[in-house]
């Protein structure tokens, strides 16, 4: 099977690991070989959380610089920071809702403006898709479903072999019942944002 490499990058607390888990479960449902790795511990105290997922017959669980086929960023600055994982053909999906790091608040660095973030990414990769995941998550019923909105966008670009049906099933099984309906709506809104 053709190997596909995905990087998901987020700020601690944005639900990156749950999104990866749902996607992994969905791949398992379709019998697609999948492996992923993530970083826990010190990195979680407000830092960046990155997970790598590899679909197809590879044994590695991490992705080298320049080798991601697709990257999903939950926060625009972190998408830009992680861009070295991509090459000129990679597809990048990023939310445009900023979460400025504390260093910017205390004047140690300036958060770049959104248009320049977008153009710096767009110039370097094959395809850039942007959406305001926070707005869509609120529309779905909870700010916490930013992760599932972006999962919807990821499935809609059709780079991975995972289908929307299997992700929807995985959402129903993996996320709390009270939250499943909101998440399914968030997933649809994310997909629609890319297709529109």
């Amino acid at each position, binding site marked *: 099977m053709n190997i596909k490499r995905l990087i998901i990058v987020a700020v601690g607390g944005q639900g990156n690991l749950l999104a990866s888990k749902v996607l*992994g479960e969905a791949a398992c449902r379709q019998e697609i070989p999948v*492996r992923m790795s993530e970083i826990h*511990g010190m990195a979680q*105290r407000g830092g960046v959380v990155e997970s790598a997922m590899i679909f197809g017959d590879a044994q590695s669980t991490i992705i*080298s610089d*320049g*080798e991601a086929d697709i990257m999903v960023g939950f926060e625009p600055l972190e998408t830009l920071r992680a861009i070295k994982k991509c*090459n000129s053909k990679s597809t990048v999906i990023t939310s445009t809702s900023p979460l400025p790091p504390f260093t910017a*608040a205390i004047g140690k660095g300036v958060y770049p403006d959104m248009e320049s973030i977008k153009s710096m990414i767009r110039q370097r990769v094959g395809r850039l898709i942007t959406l305001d995941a926070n707005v869509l998550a609120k529309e779905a019923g909870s700010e916490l479903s930013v992760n599932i909105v972006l999962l919807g966008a990821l499935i809609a670009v059709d780079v991975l072999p995972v289908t929307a049906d299997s992700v929807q099933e995985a959402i129903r099984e993996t996320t709390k019942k009270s939250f499943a309906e909101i998440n399914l709506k968030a997933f649809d809104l994310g997909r629609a944002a890319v297709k529109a």
Partner: protein
Amino acid sequence: MHKLLTDKPGEKAFLLGNEAIARGAIEAGLGFASTYPGTPSSEISANFFQISRESDLYFEYSTNEKVALEVAAAAANSGVRSMCIMKHVGVNVAADALMTLAYVGVRGGLVILTADDPFMFSSQNEQDNRYYGKLSGLPILEPSSGEEAKEMVDHAFDLSERLQEPVLLRTTTRINHSTSPVIFGKIRKPVTKGDFAKDPFNYVTVPAVSRKLHVKLLKNYETALELSNSSSYNFIEGNGSFGIICNGVSYNYVKDAVRDLDVENKIKILRIGFSHPMPNALIQKFLQGCQKALVVEEGEPYMEEAVKSAAQEKGFTNPINGKGPDLFSRLFEFDPGMVRAKIASYFGFAYAPAAPVDLTGIPDLPQRPPNLCAGCSHRAMFYAVNKAAEGIPNIRPTDIGCYTLGFLPPLSTGDFLICMGSSVGTGCGFSKATNKKVISYIGDSTFFHSGIPGLINAVFNNHDITLVILDNHTTAMTGHQPHPGVDMQELKLEGFNRVSIESVVKGIGVGHVAMIRPYNIKKSIAAIREALAYKGVSVVIAQQSCVLMDKSLKKLRGKPFCVSDRCKNHRNCINDLGCPAFYVEGSAVRINAALCTGCGVCAQICPEHAIVPVKD
């Protein structure tokens, strides 16, 4: 039912490596487990803790790794299959027990899991614990994936019982924290109670006994060597004339590289999964007909040394390489692209490396370092110490936990750290070797782990130090595990006692002890000033539960604060506290109400009293 107790052999589950390891132990009939938590091993024991609440498994969080290993050693010598889980540096703490336990051996299987951390994602060093196999003489198994780790745990128990000695299972972060599909096997019914047959001339390690036991250990080594040479975990793949010897995650990178480079017919691979003793005869067989051999291993040249020694015995003179300036580093972790590039250049294969995007033109981006949480009581305490110690030349040894982050600006408090408990011992040394006041920081769990002997030392030798114990009622950094000072009844967990830090400190004979609530800044500063003025050992115990834990237990009661129009932009709140709930909008300081926990610390330090509770 806990998902790892699912009794459906053949069912597939998408498991974290650490879950796969826990499941492997359950399938092997684990009866007893002990640990001190440490990343990247913590989820193994977190699962055992949950499982122990609904099965016959005995599990405990021990006070430190040495105690954990002693506890498990006794269980194993009572015939119960036992496991002891720790991070790599935890083995240093347990090493005293380990080295002589290797002599004494076990009756029931004992598997000691050491989780190494190449690149130090969450550790103070990246030591390679395979050398503990050499040092102790005990067997080491090393998996390349979660699925294999699950099988290996089962095999490790059999091996331990066959050799009647503990077996080390060595993982690295990318095994512990990778997730992949794992197939459940059968669960063996655990034996949770055994008996200890007295045999002091084999169990009480006085010199005359140990001399005999060392002979036994070396004899066991010979058996282990035979088993390593024939182990299914040491296997050869392919039959090319170039050889690659690899282990652990490196095997995955090698396999992917050989396929990506399309050189399957040119390469043969020796994967080492039973790495102590190294399979000497198998290595010699592998080297036969090898024009060139490359050893691919993260960390130290542990295998490379063994391979070169095996080659020398047989007069094999073709090149064997591993570590080197143009080859592999002893530093940090490997990645697939790097391994692919090194294999291509070493053997002379054509290769067009991936081209990462060009980063020139991207400005320096504001960093996002880890930070103490909004409302963290450590921040309040550090602020109070900074204020109380103004004008007093001082050194501040710190310790291992979330509070280590206090060394970062703007709090910038934390000067020296080497290991768990070192804040107290090094504080003793700084107080004698310099003329500065010493203020040491230690967390509650770390205090129980290894801070107490240092404090006794300080009292006995009459050092002049102030120890600040940051008691947040949990082991926060590794995921809120309990420790002896935790009120387990409050967590609705029966069957535990509670050890009071205050009683321990007073029992040691510390001359000045103060208890404070760190959110009360004025009183905290006063208490620290008083402690600093005391000549001798003083202890300040700052009690406030971890906000992150309170949040998950739904115990957070505070209401968020906001910045009113009284603000004159002094920015003491941002510049001195650095709480992540603050942000700047235009030139105005704002508080993110969703992050603010209502601790009220910033409101107490604002010179204009401009920070006020949000009105309902």
